[in-house]
């Protein structure tokens, strides 16, 4: 049985593994018979494919991604959306699931509004968005926080395990944008802030395995802390 390569942090130009058996995946290139990383990140191998998961860097928009953005500008044809990424994003009139009066665009979304949208195309002109799906549209209440987009998979967890745990423990609605913006809405502000803290906790500890258990323990600690605070005030 061949040994699996251990996950390790690598820096640009560093060799990960030598041998004809391995294939260069994302964040790597082949130099002679060695697979070398082109990113600062976590190198891992599965089924002979070697790739490097970025630890940092800007958001790479992909078709199908759910994102959260801010309305920056209104034109005749739709809304210009800021995703906190260098590419511009646009939500055209046609992608809004109801009749829009061309003169009353700002009634639907005004400058400064936050929206949840889906990416339907990424071209050299920019990113094309739609809100013609369930769960998409304007955000009316709650708080928006920002994490590095590379931490989003960890915050969501395998098949949503992490984010579902946080939702359950806090009783909040949470929408995670792939671009790193996250919308949190709860009945109490304290719950929303607890989620914010939990997400920061997860994104700072990205590479600890057994993170789900640690987060469960963290919530227990926080609940005891808050209970003690309330008891003190009685």
């Amino acid at each position, binding site marked *: 049985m061949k040994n699996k390569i251990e*996950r*390790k*942090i690598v*820096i*640009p*130009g*560093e060799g990960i593994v030598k041998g004809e058996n391995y294939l260069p995946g994302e*964040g790597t290139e082949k130099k002679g018979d060695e697979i070398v990383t*082109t*990113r*600062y*990140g*976590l190198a891992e191998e599965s089924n002979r494919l070697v790739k490097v998961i*970025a*630890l*940092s*860097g*800007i958001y790479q928009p992909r078709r199908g991604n759910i994102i959260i953005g801010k309305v920056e500008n209104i034109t005749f044809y739709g809304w210009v959306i800021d995703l906190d990424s*260098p590419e*511009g994003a646009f939500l055209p009139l046609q992608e809004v699931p109801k009749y829009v009066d061309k003169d009353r665009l700002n009634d639907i979304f005004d400058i400064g509004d936050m929206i949840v949208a889906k990416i339907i195309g990424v071209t*050299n002109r920019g990113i094309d968005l739609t809100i013609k799906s369930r769960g998409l549209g304007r955000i009316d209440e709650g708080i928006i926080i920002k994490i590095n987009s*590379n931490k989003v998979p960890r915050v969501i967890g395998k098949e949503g395990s992490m984010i579902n745990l946080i939702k359950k423990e806090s009783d909040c609605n949470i929408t995670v944008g792939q671009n790193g913006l996250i919308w949190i809405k709860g009945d109490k502000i304290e719950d929303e802030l607890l989620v914010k803290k939990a997400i920061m906790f997860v994104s*700072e*500890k990205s*590479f*600890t*395995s*057994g993170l789900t258990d640690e987060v469960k323990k963290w919530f227990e600690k926080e609940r005891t802390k808050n209970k003690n605070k309330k008891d003190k005030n009685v």
Partner: protein
Amino acid sequence: MTKEFKRSDGRKPDEIRAMEAKVGVVPNANGSAMFSFGDTIAIAAVYGPKKMHPQHQQDPEKGTLRCKYSMLSFSVSERIRPGPNRRSTEISKITEWALEPVLMIKKYPNMAIDVHINILQANASTRCAGINAAALALAHAGIPMKDIVSSISIGKIDKQLVVDLNKDEEDWEEGEGSTDIPITMTSGGEITHIQLDGRITSKELKEVIELARKVMKEIYEVQKKALKDSVREIK
């Protein structure tokens, strides 16, 4: 007869001052780092890739690297008046040239990658410390790179070759005086930056480059450690 030059801080000719490097020193930046050679301290922060303004300067074939080197007014004995000067403008450009060969920025057309370098304290070799910090900051920012670059100043003080000049050595005037040669190389041994001012033969210069290649590894190790140490834990 020339006596062997003795270094003012007691170092051996091929000894680099104590180096320190750390990433993540500016939380607002996409990537950041500090790097020091003894008393010379540089910090660098990277913002980008991001939209590039003004539009007419955009490059449709690749991203644009923009470096700005600047010394804090109190980083040297005689206060520097704030604002760009010809020296800092030149160093900004050679820093760009030192870093660009290893950056893979074809995938960021029309975008800018801004690198800001500030010298907090100066005891010579400031451009080298700046380049080392900038290389770290770019990697930390997740910019795709073929390699890291490392930079060091080699000097010929009178007839003696030394590594990592301090200010006393830079100002040395006896004998053949001081020749200052800052060099930047990839870990694969390719030169991305070299400058010289002083007086030297080409035979001596070849020795200088060999010496640089030898000691460059020490700097690379410090940079590598800074990047690896910054990740809290990994299983």
